[in-house]
């Protein structure tokens, strides 16, 4: 029973991060109908931005201060939003009217470009760097169950961001425009909606979430390196497909489920090395049995 509860907490902590990343995949898919494979590298760049910025902020706000941590997060989110919008502007927008496969391959290219540029010794280098402790880490003990303050933080931050996201998408003008563009770009153009700006905004929003996810992910793992985005990126991609690509609540559900799966498989000795295989197995099963995902609906257009 304790074991079950412990893994659930671990799974939620990890799943919350997957959910944040998956939202970025699913939002971009929603407006442009392609998978932005460079998304996981934006996460990596977020972690590295935090690595370089944190010492400077800590000089101003004191070591491991809450204010400093919030400031680092906001600055890094802004940096990554700009990176995401730049990628869209330079790599994807010129291909807007080309077949989706062209854009997809370009996305893989952008991802590799970022990863290997970052691995260059003159840029970041391929060595592992220790990620700074932005906040003091505590462990709360309840009987045999240990809850890390990082997991609590991750879950709380994710819940707050999800509420903010829900509000933006469902209740604001720009969010309504995002949904309109996702349904029919031409019709949105005819309403005077600046489609390019809305798409840019979507990339910015998704990349900002990836940045926060990058910080949270780096806080959990002891070190960061230029390929660190790949693993959580792939898991979050599976999560987005599992929940129903293009569907925001689906991305969150998929993220949590996948985090749970990672935690439970990781907690069983013989199974832990198979947890990636299980995750990809689930991706294949979903694509075979329910391609629209758990919450996705295949829509029918009335004529």
């Amino acid at each position, binding site marked *: 029973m304790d074991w079950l509860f412990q893994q659930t907490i671990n799974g939620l902590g990890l799943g919350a991060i997957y959910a944040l990343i998956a939202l970025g995949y699913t939002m971009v898919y929603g407006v442009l109908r392609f998978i932005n494979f460079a998304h996981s590298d934006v996460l990596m760049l977020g972690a590295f931005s935090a690595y370089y910025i944190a010492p400077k902020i800590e000089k101003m706000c004191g070591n491991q201060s809450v204010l400093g941590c919030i400031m680092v997060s906001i600055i890094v989110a802004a940096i990554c939003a700009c990176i995401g919008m730049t990628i869209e502007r330079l790599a994807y927008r010129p291909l807007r009217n080309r077949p989706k496969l062209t854009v997809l391959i370009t996305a893989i290219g952008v991802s590799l470009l970022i990863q290997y540029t970052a691995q260059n010794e003159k840029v970041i280098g391929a060595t592992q760097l220790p990620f700074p402790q932005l906040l003091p880490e505590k462990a709360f003990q309840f009987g045999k169950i240990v809850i890390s303050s990082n997991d609590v933080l991750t879950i709380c931050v994710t819940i707050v961001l999800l509420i903010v996201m829900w509000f933006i998408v469902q209740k604001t003008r720009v969010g*309504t425009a995002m949904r309109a563009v996702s349904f029919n770009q031409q019709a949105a153009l005819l309403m005077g909606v600046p489609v390019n700006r809305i798409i840019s905004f979507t990339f910015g929003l998704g990349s900002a979430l990836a940045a926060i996810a990058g910080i949270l992910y780096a806080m959990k793992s002891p070190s960061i390196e230029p390929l660190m985005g790949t693993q959580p990126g792939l898991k979050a991609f599976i999560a987005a497909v599992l929940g129903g690509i293009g569907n925001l609540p689906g991305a969150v559900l998929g993220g949590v489920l996948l985090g749970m799966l990672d935690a439970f498989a990781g907690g069983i000795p013989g199974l832990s090395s198979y947890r990636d295989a299980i995750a990809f197995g689930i991706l294949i099963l979903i694509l075979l049995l329910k391609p629209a995902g758990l919450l996705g609906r295949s829509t029918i257009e009335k004529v």
Partner: protein
Amino acid sequence: MLTVENLHVSYGAIKALHGISLKVPQGSIVTLIGANGAGKSTTLRALSGLVKSTGTVIYNGQDTSKLAPNQIVAQGLCHVPEGRMVFANLTVHENLQMGAYLQRDKHWIANQTEYVFGLFPRLKERENQAAGTLSGGEQQMLAIGRALLSKPKFLMLDEPSLGIAPLLVKAIFERIVEINREQGLTILLVEQNANLALDISSYAYVLESGKILLEGPSAELKVNPEVQAAYLGA
């Protein structure tokens, strides 16, 4: 109000329009009739900036042929596209909000929304329903209502009767005439149902294979034997 001269459009190697010229005077209803594939929708798409074209388009004394779609809408030249293209994933209310995307005056938006609900009470009943759950006719009402919230001076309607129950078609066409009279809107109507279109318009153009074949006052075209044979099923 709108003068089009020598409008050409190509889709890749295929020429869709071979130099169309037409005039729509302020406050009138002008119709463009013709068979499937004649270039009716392409003409409207060129005028609203959705497809690239060459030639001159003078709207309200201004050349709009090089403007982007959102700039053209901002000038009050609004297009209700073929197949309605309502945002099925948005509620009726949100669809109308999107129509008013460029409008800043909240008071005007509220008044105009009431006007649209007055025209089409069905929309009021279904205000918070997803547009995808509406019937075809109701979606057409929403598409027209949404365009009215873009503060149009000139409305282009593409096949408003397509795939809609006959009873609703009649209601929608009555509303189109009403909008033309009450809001002083100039209307360019594209229709396959030539009978209906000629009844409510004052002037008509007949389009065939990307060219204007015939033009004249609607009442005259309606009794023209050539038009009757080809388009009115007489």
